[in-house]
């Protein structure tokens, strides 16, 4: 009979409760992975193609005239930024489209009626966003290796930055999906917020090139910190303090998770 029906205080029940939750979490992540793989032409390929175009145009054609940026060849300089850009847009896009799709198609109810705590549902979708971020990040890395040489200066910083950034934007996508009432509202934030912040987030340039006022404004852009922390992991060079960057990522992740959980518990956009 029901696997989690006996939720008493005994150690056995607690173990089975944990086991049930873990199974639920795995199920959401496996389902998300299945979705990513099933529609790979929409989920994986576009970012790899776009990044290849960036490398050809900005790296090979324009980059040769730019020369060095922060002491490294321009092509090499933009590679971490392009990888991070793909991670950001895909983590966000995966969660917002998948969770909104589940709301729109009503199959989110499959999870809502099940004995899954709301935090598990959020973590499951974040897991899906992380998976897509990793897969696309890996694909863009492979593309970038065709055009330039990448050495890892600090593997922990690379992994930490990519995990935290992916988490932050997965959670952002989740909150967007909670409030979205139609597909237009799913696209607003990526188009009008994420894309400008990413382009002004130091993907293609060092903020040392900017006038002082613009440099100060750029510090308020969280993506600048994420991109630079990631770049530091590869090249050992950064426009920002890496500790500050990680603090921003960590605080953002915790804050966004709390917001997402608050609205899940209230049933915003799902329960009346």
């Amino acid at each position, binding site marked *: 009979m*029901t*696997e*989690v029906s006996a*939720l008493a205080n005994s150690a056995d029940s607690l173990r089975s409760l944990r086991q*049930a939750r873990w199974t*639920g979490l795995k199920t959401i992540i496996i389902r998300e992975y299945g979705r990513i793989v099933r529609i790979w032409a929409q989920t994986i390929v576009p970012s790899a193609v776009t990044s290849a175009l960036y490398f050809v145009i900005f790296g090979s054609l324009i980059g040769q005239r730019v020369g060095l940026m922060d002491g490294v060849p321009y092509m090499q300089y933009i590679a971490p930024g392009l990888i991070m850009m793909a991670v950001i847009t895909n983590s966000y896009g995966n969660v917002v489209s998948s969770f909104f799709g589940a709301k729109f*198609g009503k199959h989110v109810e*499959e999870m809502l009626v099940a004995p899954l705590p709301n935090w598990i549902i959020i973590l499951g979708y974040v897991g899906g966003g992380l998976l897509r971020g990793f897969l696309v990040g890996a694909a863009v890395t492979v593309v970038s290796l065709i055009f330039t040489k990448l050495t890892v200066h600090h593997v922990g910083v690379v992994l930490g930055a990519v995990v935290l950034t992916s988490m932050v934007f997965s959670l952002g996508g989740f909150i967007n999906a909670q409030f979205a009432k139609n597909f237009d509202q799913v696209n607003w934030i990526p188009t009008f917020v994420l894309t400008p912040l990413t382009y002004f987030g130091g993907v293609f340039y060092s903020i040392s090139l900017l006038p002082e006022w613009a440099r100060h404004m750029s510090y308020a852009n969280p993506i600048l910190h994420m991109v630079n922390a990631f770049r530091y992991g590869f090249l050992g060079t950064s426009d920002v303090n890496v500790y500050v960057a990680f603090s921003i990522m960590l605080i953002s992740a915790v804050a966004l998770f709390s917001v997402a959980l608050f609205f899940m518990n209230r049933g915003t956009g799902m*329960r*009346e």
Partner: protein
Amino acid sequence: MYALSIRGLTKTYKNGVQALKGVDLDVERGDFFALLGPNGAGKTTLIGILTSLVNKSSGTVSVFGHDIDRELEAAKACIGIVPQELNFNQFETPQTILVNQAGFYGIERALARERTEKYLSLLQLSDKRNKIARGLSGGMKRRLMIARALVHEPRLLILDEPTAGVDIEIRRSMWDFLREINARGTTIILTTHYLEEAETLCRNIAIINGGLIAERDRMSTLLRKLQAETFVLNLREAVDSVPQVPGYEFELIDDHTLEVEVSKEQSLNEVFAKLTEQGIGVLSMRNKVNRLEELFMKLVERKPGAGAIPS
């Protein structure tokens, strides 16, 4: 301990609509229970609260002793729901849908696959296990939702209009299946607009109207409360005028068909005897409407909260 116990349940939506106005209801373990009511009576809101898809305004609900405010996960684990509207991912296969649903209920993948095969087979969907759900027929989609609701083997199965739009043959086979799982111990709550379905399957019944329970009784007891039934008589030979029988009101529908209302105190034998005296032979007879339908109409036409109909 009841399978379901509800006390003082109210729900007021943000737009001010008061869908439930203080519902009290108990459903016994192992029961096959009908929850009936006209559109907008509060059935779907009530089911929504039981399945956590609607937030209640006040009141208490407990499922097999688990209060939904204090032990929501335990209460949810006891329930399987077949909703009125299709709510599975139309781009997934029945197999994936069931395995995932089992996973959401904490069932490990190996067992989930085993259960999936079992319920796909019981609902005659085995050969469709790897088809995209969007391509299934209406009846298959309904059966898929029943299989999905059962894959974690719930103690309480709630079916909201499970046979809507399903042809008679499939409906009958679904009835047999539901009787079987009820006989094996699963408590079932059924809402339906096919009152014949409720009368055939259910032992107990509640009628909800205007956000309140208008009637709650055993099906047989409730049907006995019906004061009068209307019968349609098919005549052997044509008649050209309405027969005059003291105490009975006949209506001539056409030259071969009569309608008569017979109260609880009267007898059909007497009707036949009087007609025979007048040389009118009856070939066959049927209820004008389903008995439960007649009772239902009488109940919902009264103002909510006006009290039970007299026994």
